């Protein structure tokens, strides 16, 4: 990490949605989409958020941008608490944060010309004149690798990858510091994916952007991230630097995920961790560790207590009792030695 200045700090963030239970009048359950998440995002880094569908990774992104109201917890962006701010006061800070969307077909208004789409944020938040705005729009569209002619067209005249570039241009229009990319390449062909990812990396260098990159694709995350957080059922189970996570996954879920990536080289023996069953419903998440029903190493303790994120080494934090046990044993050994 070049510098360790915290841009965004999220602590104990919870986003619960009320759900009606059918046939049971009056009873309401809560869907715990984001359940007690804390993380730091440092300036200039890319934090990848990976998890299967339903793990709450998109909701996390949307809650940070306050598109979804958090139930509890704190969102601190550049030292400013955002969780309680409303409309105008919020917008001042939100201008520093933009989003790139998953669906390149839904994220551009089909009835608006590209020029207008990219110009809109500039018009809203700067006092540039019409010709200055036009200049800025041309500059942006060229930055993302499209030509000026694209400006006069409508969204349906572009391919998925081109539309995603337009979405990126719109996100960059008012010089944000943080970009939350919600599965920006999952709707694209593999060949286009790498182009868009490399564009994002180039832009990061040029504009000193910080990314929160949400994806379910482990190889995409590996390509773009500096650090990776693995989410399971609304919680972060492991957060680590990319290299240590991919080389030495600690949490059984992370291990299972990584062992599921197909390999080309069959001689290379790998530890395979089978997990069975389905992702439990976030409406009634299991007591204790959310993963204990599917975990091959589950202990009695895991069914009762919820493990918290603990630092295992200076690059890795993991929420699993397996490592707490080890730590304790080491502690007791060392204390015995001392005695």
């Amino acid at each position, binding site marked *: 990490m070049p510098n360790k200045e915290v841009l965004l700090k999220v602590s104990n963030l919870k986003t619960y949605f009320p759900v009606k239970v059918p046939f049971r009048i009056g009873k309401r359950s809560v869907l715990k989409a984001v359940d007690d998440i804390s993380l730091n995002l440092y300036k200039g880094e890319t934090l990848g958020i990976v998890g299967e569908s339903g793990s709450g990774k998109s909701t996390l992104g949307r809650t940070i*941008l306050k*598109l979804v109201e958090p139930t509890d917890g704190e969102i601190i962006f550049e030292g400013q608490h955002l969780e309680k701010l409303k409309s105008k006061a919020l*917008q001042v800070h*939100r*201008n520093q944060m*933009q*989003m790139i*969307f*998953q*669906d390149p077909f*839904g*994220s*551009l*208004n*089909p*009835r*608006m010309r590209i020029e207008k789409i990219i110009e*809109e*944020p500039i018009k*809203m*938040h700067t006092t540039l004149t019409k010709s200055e705005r036009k200049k800025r729009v041309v500059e942006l569209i060229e930055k993302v690798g499209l030509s000026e002619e694209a400006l006069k067209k409508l969204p349906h005249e572009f391919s998925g990858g081109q539309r995603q570039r337009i*979405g990126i241009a*719109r996100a960059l229009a*008012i010089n944000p510091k943080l970009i939350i990319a919600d599965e920006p390449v999952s709707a694209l062909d593999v060949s286009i994916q790498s182009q868009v990812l490399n564009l994002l990396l180039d832009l990061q260098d040029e504009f000193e952007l910080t990314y929160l990159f949400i994806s379910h694709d482990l190889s995409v995350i590996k390509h773009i991230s500096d650090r990776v957080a693995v989410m399971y059922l609304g919680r972060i189970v492991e957060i680590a630097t990319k290299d240590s996570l991919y080389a030495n996954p600690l949490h059984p879920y992370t291990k299972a995920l990584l062992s599921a990536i197909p390999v080309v080289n069959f001689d290379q023996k790998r530890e395979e961790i089978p997990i069975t069953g389905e992702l439990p419903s976030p409406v009634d998440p299991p007591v204790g560790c959310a993963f204990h029903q599917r975990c091959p190493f589950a202990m009695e303790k895991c069914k009762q207590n919820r493990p918290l994120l603990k630092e295992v080494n200076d690059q890795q934090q993991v929420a699993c009792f397996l490592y707490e046990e080890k730590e304790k044993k080491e502690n007791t050994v060392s204390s015995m030695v001392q005695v």
Partner: protein
Amino acid sequence: MRKYAKNINLILGSLILFVFLGMMVVSFFYTPYDVNSMDIPNKLQEPSSKHIFGTDEFGRDIFSRILKGSQTAFIVGALTVTIGVFFGVLIGGIAGYVGGWIDEIFMRFMDALMAFPGIILALMLVAVFGPGIINTSIALGIIAIPSIARVTRSGFVQQKEAEYVTASKLIGVQSYKIMFKHILPNISSQIIVAASIAFAIAMLAEAALSYLGLGVQPPDPSWGRMLKDAQAYLIASPWYTYAPGGAITLLVLGLYLLSNAIRDMMDPRSNS
């Protein structure tokens, strides 16, 4: 182009509409005979080369009155649709976009309005405010609101979840701008279809009201009123009913065909 040429609804519908629109424009400058000048000796004549649709009970030229009557039909239709679309889009848009209890209140109110048979409500309003083109249009406009509000609401409910709306919210675009600059153009085709049906219904309702003597007042020619007057001479001179009845039927048919054609054309599933 070939796809449109195949569309018989579009061709027939717009042809009929253009003929009637042409008639209306012509009637501002020229009618074969003066619309209100009576010629009692020549009353109730059969269609002939002098009077192509014959004459009425006062000897007035029916063709001229049909021409002039198209003005009434279009004015009532246009006014009704304007009122209906304006308030319908406003109410439906707010209900669909805001949602929650505002949606409930607005839409239950629309349901209540819809529960009245339209013509009864129009009769009631005209009875209170008095007959005439403007009052008739206002009454019919109020009746047109719920159907347009419903179409608009469902469109807004569908579109407000789209990511381009989220993107605009994120930028901080004001809600009214998102509603009317971003979402509305995307559901305009549905509203156009609803409006063209409302137009046809308004013309029918105007004819019905005038037929009942509560719509357009004499001596202004109205197709509905002509039909009512013709009823008294149905046995002796049946051709008197043909022209106004035919005009109403044809124009309403044309509008329905056109609205069907627009719906088919705008439907993305049939398009690509």
